[in-house]
């Protein structure tokens, strides 16, 4: 058959004796820009997709639309001045970014941090992790087509943000964790409100579970979709929930404890293929859901230890006002909500870095898309991009 569009039936007999019909329908691939203004690319990501009907044959992620030269800026401002720039890589987890940067400077400059400051750092990091995963949960529901979970997630996130507002005055870009300590101590009564938040949040989590996680349609849309086998996850350098969703138990808080994470007990959830295949979208999603509960567990322990072991006001470490880092190199990685945020710092004895390299987890996680997307449907592509949970601010920096 030569003319396009005609259907030819080859009647062949396969090994099992069944007749096979080969339909020779000529179709043409269509190249479409998904993004940078697409509602579910989570920011300014552009994925150039080739689609044969609803099936993708090729997908190429393009990024760089909000590249802001964070690393180059770091070489031109002093150590403290760079803190607000760290807020802006992963703007949904600014506290964790601040923490990652603070840790690498402290490691290079050999600073000590007061125990109370360390406990508070853990508290804000875990609270921000909850807020970040709530966005991941809400927007993932929206990607799948359920609008209401998004607002449920935002309800609790709103409280989280107002807690941070009480703590440091900012709701999104906190600049709270500084090299050598914190911007300020917690205000009176803050821990009590945080405890109430923990209690309420655990109840609300059950609502999320009923509304979205166990929803039949949601499960049908996410199970066996976008399966990342453990090997592939490691090959692409995935970290965070994307890696743990594939069943690899790797969490920096557990494997290379920083702060006081070795003094608190928590579980590291991994994907087990509960609904379908190990490493599918549902697994990655569920790892995030469980992590929120684990964060609440860590929060409770941290508040208890912080109130018991330390006295209010003692957050000063041993840093001098002007921070200078000797000629040295240091690497510090922290477990961000999206994976390992690594900072590699080269100091030259001055008050600003000679070079600061940032390893953004979203950037590495994004790389798996072009292997994952071909062969899926458009709706699946949206589900997969959502389950990788990238923040474009961090991809481009």
């Amino acid at each position, binding site marked *: 058959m030569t003319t396009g569009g005609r259907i030819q039936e080859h009647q062949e007999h396969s090994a099992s004796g069944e007749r096979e019909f080969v339909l020779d329908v000529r179709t043409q691939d*269509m190249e*479409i820009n998904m993004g940078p203004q*697409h*509602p*579910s690319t989570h920011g300014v990501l552009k994925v150039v997709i080739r689609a044969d*009907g*609803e099936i993708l044959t090729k997908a190429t992620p393009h990024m760089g639309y909000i590249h802001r030269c964070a690393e180059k800026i770091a070489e031109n401002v002093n150590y403290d001045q760079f803190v607000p720039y760290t807020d802006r890589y992963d703007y949904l987890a600014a506290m964790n970014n601040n923490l990652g940067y603070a840790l690498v400077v402290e490691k290079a400059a050999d600073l000590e941090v007061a125990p109370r400051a360390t406990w508070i750092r853990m508290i804000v990091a875990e609270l921000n992790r909850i807020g970040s995963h709530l966005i991941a949960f809400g927007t993932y*529901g*929206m*990607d*799948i*087509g*359920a*609008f*209401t979970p998004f*607002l*449920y997630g935002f*309800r609790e996130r709103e409280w989280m943000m107002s807690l941070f507002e009480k703590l440091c005055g900012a709701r999104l870009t906190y600049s709270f964790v500084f090299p050598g300590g914190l911007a300020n101590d917690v205000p009176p009564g803050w821990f009590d409100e945080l405890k109430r938040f923990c209690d309420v949040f655990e109840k609300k989590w059950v609502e999320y579970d009923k*509304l*979205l996680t166990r*929803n039949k*349609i*949601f499960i*049908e*849309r996410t199970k066996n979709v976008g399966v990342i086998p453990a090997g592939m996850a490691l090959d692409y350098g995935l970290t965070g929930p994307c890696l743990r969703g594939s069943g690899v138990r790797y969490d920096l808080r557990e494997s290379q404890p920083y702060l006081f994470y070795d003094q608190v007990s928590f579980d590291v959830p991994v994907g087990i293929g509960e609904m379908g295949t190990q490493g599918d979208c549902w697994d990655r999603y569920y790892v995030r859901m469980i992590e929120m509960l684990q964060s609440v567990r860590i929060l409770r322990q941290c508040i208890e230890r912080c109130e018991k072991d330390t006295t209010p006001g003692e957050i000063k470490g041993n840093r001098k006002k002007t921070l200078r880092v000797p000629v040295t190199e240091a690497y510090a990685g922290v477990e961000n909500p999206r994976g390992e945020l690594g900072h590699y710092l080269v100091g030259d004895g001055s008050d600003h870095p000679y070079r600061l390299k940032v390893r953004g987890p979203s950037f590495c996680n994004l790389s798996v898309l072009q292997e994952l997307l071909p062969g899926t*449907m*458009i*709706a*699946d592509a*949206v589900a997969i991009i959502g389950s990788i949970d990238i923040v474009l601010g961090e991809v481009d920096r």
Partner: protein
Amino acid sequence: MTVLAFLSNGTVELQGASGATGILKGLAAYGFWGYLLAALVGFALLFGIASALPILFTWAERRVSGRMQQRWGPNRVGPFGLIQALADGIKLMFKEDIIPAQADKFLFMVAPGIVLAGMVSAFALVPLSDSAVIVDTSLGLYLIAALLSLEVIGVIMAGWASNNKWSLFGAMREAAQMVSYEIPFGLCILLAVVSYGSLSLREMSLAQAGGFLNVGNWLIFHNPFFALPAAVVFFIAALANTKRAPFDLPEAESELVSGFHTEYSGFRFSFFFLEEYASMFVISAILVSMFLGGWNLPFVPGSAVTGSFGGELLAVFTMLLKSFVLVFVMIWIRWTLPRIRIDQVMSLCYKYLTPIAFACLIGTCWWELAA
């Protein structure tokens, strides 16, 4: 009173006038121009009703979704924000009518009209009470099914003419979905036809009067083993036909930006918007007429809601109430469930709904023969 008189006398009859009473029917007696005037006034009236209900439903949708999502919803314009939808409508009317440079202009402009025309015409065929029916023909259901499927042509035109790949995807999804779901939809209509021996929705409602507590003759109670599942199948197919969640694939926001109406704005967009909400009501009203007893109320004998003015008013009220309940369920579903994928939509239709509808149809035939 004029409105009701008009409604109750069925001026725009397809088979011509008989027993002329009422102002508009009088007009029709003046030959062609009178008939034209009657038709125009009738259309304006119909269009008014067909766009007043969607305004109510958009308000309801926004209020209900607001309550479900711990928000207020519109509450500023008018009492309980009731006029908000009207204000939005006025805003849409005054917006610039943008036609993309590369679009097929004629098709792009015509498509929303076709989509809305089918739906407004279908409105005329829905009986609200024994006499409050604009067009009562013996082919009522057949005509409604035909008019409802006219919409898909407009949607495909819109998707194609926009010259936007996302719109095209939306249109193709709509075509696949509508054509597939017409099957269980049609089978459920056939089931009702078999049960009543009529294609007229008015006669169906009349036939459902009486029985135990005056609900015994409602089709879902009269024939519970086959009509009840068929009603559920019909409702699901209706969701798919009206492009409501979880079947909103043609306009899936997170996948196709806005699907087939991505390029539309202003009042052309509002046509699609009106159509969606109008079709919610039309399909609910059909479902009520076929399966849920039409305008019959429990405990109230059927003779009480036909004939007299008060009874007819009660019948209209009952019919609207029952339909609104179904519309509410549609809104409720939309704000609760995620969206289904296109292959799952197809497998749901062909593997589950169609066989169930067939089984119900055959079962009903047997039931009616045995009874």
